[in-house]
């Protein structure tokens, strides 16, 4: 099959989802990934949005996490306090998608500032729901392009905790779960027993050198380094025909 890097990223993310997961869906590629999963191997996937919609079944991909297609036909809609309090904090959500301007080797995410907090070079949007999503879901998934700027050894500001300074650090704070996978345009990365990011599979056509060049520290590679499985026909058809026909979130192969 002919496919693009962004299509591969969406499909790799979709395959991280299991049939009985409740997932806090983000916008863009995460939304596509959830919809691909729901229409293939995970029909029971329960899609929850920060806006409080539970069990959404959007007829078309939403631009924001509060679009009306997420409310019409949802199973339930909760006020924000209830969504955060009862759903997120009480551990009802299995998976969360997060993005950020920087992700470091412990999976900590920065979406607040580049530079100093009080006098930033770039003022980013901030946490939104991310900090508590990172703290309370079982598995955090990150989908982001690979670049040295985006993958520093240490983030400028921890907006959302990964393993903080290692798995023990996170545990000492009383947080369960943690980062599960980082899906880039070069590889799928996971976290070792110390909580450090390593490369688990390289995408077809990507090399160790490509990854090293775009990572801000000496990232390690799995002993049994694999190749990321390619998207199949049905997955690509869903993206191209049903979910993102206008290529808003993916570049698409012909």
């Amino acid at each position, binding site marked *: 099959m002919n496919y693009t890097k962004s299509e591969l990223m969406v499909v790799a993310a979709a395959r991280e989802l299991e049939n009985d997961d409740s997932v806090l869906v983000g916008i863009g590629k995460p939304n596509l990934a959830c919809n691909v999963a729901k229409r293939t191997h995970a029909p029971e996937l329960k899609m929850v949005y920060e806006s409080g919609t539970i069990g959404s079944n959007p007829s078309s991909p939403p631009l924001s996490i*509060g679009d009306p297609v997420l409310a019409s036909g949802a199973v339930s809609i909760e006020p924000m306090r209830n969504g955060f309090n009862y759903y997120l904090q009480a551990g009802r959500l299995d998976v969360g998608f997060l993005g950020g301007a920087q992700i470091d080797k412990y999976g900590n995410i920065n979406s607040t500032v580049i530079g100093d907090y009080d006098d930033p070079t770039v003022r980013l949007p901030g946490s939104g729901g991310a900090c508590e999503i990172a703290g309370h879901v079982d598995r955090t998934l990150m989908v982001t392009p690979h670049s040295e700027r985006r993958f520093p050894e240490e983030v400028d500001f921890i907006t959302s905790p990964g393993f903080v300074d290692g798995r023990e650090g996170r545990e000492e704070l009383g947080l369960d779960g943690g980062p599960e996978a980082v899906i880039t345009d070069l590889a799928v990365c996971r976290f070792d027993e110390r909580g450090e990011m390593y490369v688990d599979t390289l995408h077809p056509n990507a090399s160790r050198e490509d990854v090293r060049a775009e990572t801000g520290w000496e990232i390690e590679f799995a002993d049994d380094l694999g190749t990321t499985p390619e998207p199949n026909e049905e997955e690509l058809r869903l993206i191209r025909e049903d979910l993102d026909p206008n290529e808003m979130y993916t570049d698409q192969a012909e």
Partner: protein
Amino acid sequence: MSKVTSMHDAISTGVSDGDSIYLAGFTHLIPFAAGHEIIRQEKRDLELIRATPDLIYDQLIAAGCARKATFSWAGNPGVGSLPAFRRAAEDGIPTELELEEYTHFGLIAALDAGASNLPFAPLRGFIGSDLPEHNDNIARIESPFDDDYVYAVAPIQPDVAVIRAQRADDAGNAHLWGIQGEVKIAGLAADTVILSVEELCSEETIRSDPNRTVITSDDVDHVVHDPYGSHPSYAQGYYGRDNEAYIEWAEIASDVDRVEAWLDEWVYGVENRREYVEKLGAERLLDLQPEHSYATPIDMGAYR
């Protein structure tokens, strides 16, 4: 007992320079018409509070109305950043912008404490984040029952909240459906509440379905009947979100002159929401119109 008034009068009576204001809504029912009226009346030194500042706060900041933003996510959902917010926060253009920053959960908990008259609200939030170091209204607190801990946030009680709903009676009892966001607690936490609705209805309609009520008349100071008052945000069942307008804003707002031109045309250049809607035109309204989809009825029963 009718509190129905125009948006012009509600804003001129309800909002003063220096106020903290909360234009409520999470994506849904954002009070754009109220924000534009605040800009037209040239209110100054406002503290703008909301989880998601959205385009309307970007416009208020660009128009020079704001001195401070209290927020948790300052972006254009699905599109990118808020250019005017960034210019103010990074470079003080057109005015310096003080920031008080939370996470969504933290800000909503603070607003809930404000609505509840509590001195703080506890949450398992901010854990592992650098944010508490930069906000004195976030503090670690120990459990009195075991060795567990949480963070606490101090209450937020805005001077003014503007909230929108689909329908209300003229006293201000309102029904809201779809995404509820923080509309209720914003109304309960604020001193002054301006309620703007798509439709005025009878008190009987409200009383036919009391579980649908988001706020009652005792908490509402002004009622404004302002159809399409949330565009380019939306009102569930009435019109859809104008996503094109959100996407366009990214370009407009990146250039100070274009922002000025946009404000001249769409805010200063119209007298009220009705003129704005006329300017939008029927085609755009039709494109945003959903098909009907009614909820399955419920029977409250008439008991003797």
